[in-house]
């Protein structure tokens, strides 16, 4: 199993865009090595702007660059960008529907040892509530690259959420990828696991193990959080009758919340949610944290059994 951080996909895509699109510019807030924007910086220094430790200014500067016809990718850790600069994203960027792309790194508790202050667990909630914003959570480095390339072509603001740790690559280069359209990772009939981000690998492990117990799990990669693929969610509810959502993020107002909103309006079925349960994280290694906070394939299997009992 090849492992690579999804943020590498961002860095690779920026290099491709640097070559293919002269209007692409990149901004960072003193974390260029960690966010992989240093790859772009080293090759296209005249189109790279380090704004220093000033995230709000970085978002405003990106807005100005977009007003001037550029396609800025503003980049730093998710907590500092989606949290600290939320008003700049809302009022300066989204209200004016400016063509600003946001790369939010270190999403999820798997950031590990840095602890709660650096573990972004709220960006899905914070971003999807803002009108005009679009949001993608890639599940592996390949999807990270595809999503970043796609974001450059999508008009208006787009938030991309990446993770720090090297995680399994389980999609293929040749897999079709379309913004706003969920990808079917496993066909199944008894229950549907809907997930986003690298934790989808745990969902696949869970589906494989449930298959040995004779339970058929559909697994959907809901890489686009907004606009969410309502059609795929409703079809999953109609065809499998039960849903488990899986995310490395607060389930409240996160993917779990987003899927539940679609279901209650269209096709109410039992839902179980796997994710962070209204708590902050803590320091620890990623594997220990995944166990403690209930984010492993075993937790997903438990949720599947629970939801099947409610069917």
């Amino acid at each position, binding site marked *: 199993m090849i492992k690579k951080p999804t943020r590498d996909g961002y860095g690779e895509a920026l290099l491709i865009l640097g070559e293919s699109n002269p209007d692409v510019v990149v901004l960072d807030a003193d974390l260029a090595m960690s966010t992989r924007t240093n790859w772009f910086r080293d090759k296209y220094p*005249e189109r790279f702007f380090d704004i220093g430790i000033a995230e709000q200014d970085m978002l*405003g500067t990106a807005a100005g660059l977009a007003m001037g016809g550029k396609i800025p990718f503003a980049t730093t850790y998710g907590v500092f960008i989606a949290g600290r600069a939320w008003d700049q994203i809302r009022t300066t960027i989204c209200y004016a529907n400016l063509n600003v792309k946001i790369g939010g790194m270190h999403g999820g508790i798997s950031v590990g040892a840095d602890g709660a202050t650096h573990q972004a667990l709220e960006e899905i909630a914070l971003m999807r509530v803002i009108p005009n914003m679009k949001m993608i959570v890639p599940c592996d480095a390949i999807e990270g690259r595809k999503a970043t390339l796609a974001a450059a072509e999508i008009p208006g603001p787009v938030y991309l959420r990446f993770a720090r740790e090297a995680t399994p690559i389980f999609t293929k280069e040749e897999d079709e990828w379309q913004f706003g359209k969920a990808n079917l990772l496993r066909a199944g009939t008894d229950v549907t696991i809907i997930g986003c981000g690298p934790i989808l690998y745990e969902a696949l492990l869970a589906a494989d193990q449930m298959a040995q117990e004779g339970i058929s799990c559909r697994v959907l990669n809901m890489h686009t959080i907004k606009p969410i693929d309502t059609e795929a969610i409703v079809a999953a509810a109609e065809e499998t009758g039960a849903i488990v959502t899986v995310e490395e993020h607060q389930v409240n107002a996160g993917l779990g919340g987003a899927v539940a909103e679609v279901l209650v309006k269209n096709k109410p079925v039992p839902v179980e949610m796997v994710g962070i349960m209204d708590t902050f994280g803590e320091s620890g290694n990623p594997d220990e944290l995944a166990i403690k906070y209930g984010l492993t394939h075993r937790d997903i299997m438990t949720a599947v059994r629970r939801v099947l009992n409610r069917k």
Partner: protein
Amino acid sequence: MRADLQELKALCKEVRRDIVKMTAAAGSGHPGGSLSSVELLVGLYFAKMRHDPQRPDWADRDRFILSKGHVAPVLYSVLARAGYFPVEELLTLRKLGSRLQGHPSMLSLPGIDNSSGSLGQGLSQANGLALAARLNKQDYRVYCLLGDGELQEGQVWEAVMTAAHYKLSSVCAIVDYNNLQIDGPVEEVIGLHPLADKWQAFNWHVISIDGHDLEQVLAAYDEAENVKDKPSVIIAKTIKGKGVSFMENVAGWHGRAPNQEELAKALAELAN
């Protein structure tokens, strides 16, 4: 499009009349800071900036970034008087369905270069525009109007550092230094003194003027344009509510509209 001084002065009165009429018609709004910025904006739009009301999206136009979005009335009046949209539309300010939102929306009205309303965010945008111009090899200038109370926002000083660091000489910040904010005199709320020294220490070229003296205003814009190695700031000493005796230097007129009686009195004072 440099008009002569007498014409500009007459225009300033016209704009002041618009401001009190608009806010009175709306029943709310921000006359105080609008009135203090009149000469600064009239000077820009009628004597300094490269712009064309027939082509609001002209890529090479000079930009005006309003950071203190609550003084939308003065900007709307100046844009209408310049020909961006009908003057009659001014009286729709703040009404349902109007293009003249309570705080400016760049998607709603031609001539508006940025959306604002949450303070402290404009100078960063001005910097971004200046960086874009540099990359695109365009020579437009970027003007950014800030309130003095607004300088209490931390993001302003982040942007002040960024502009100096990248030597954005096409950026000209303008501080409407009327020394009043909602809760009282700026120096009593969170003081800015010594303001010119602060900007200077951040490596800006500082020009201090009387912001109601049109000759000084225009000279300051010219001086700023000739500084090629750093951004410039014009610290314009002004009077909040300028031109209407009972509004001058009264913090309460920051965000309250005149009633009909007050409007009549204001218009009488502002008659030609």
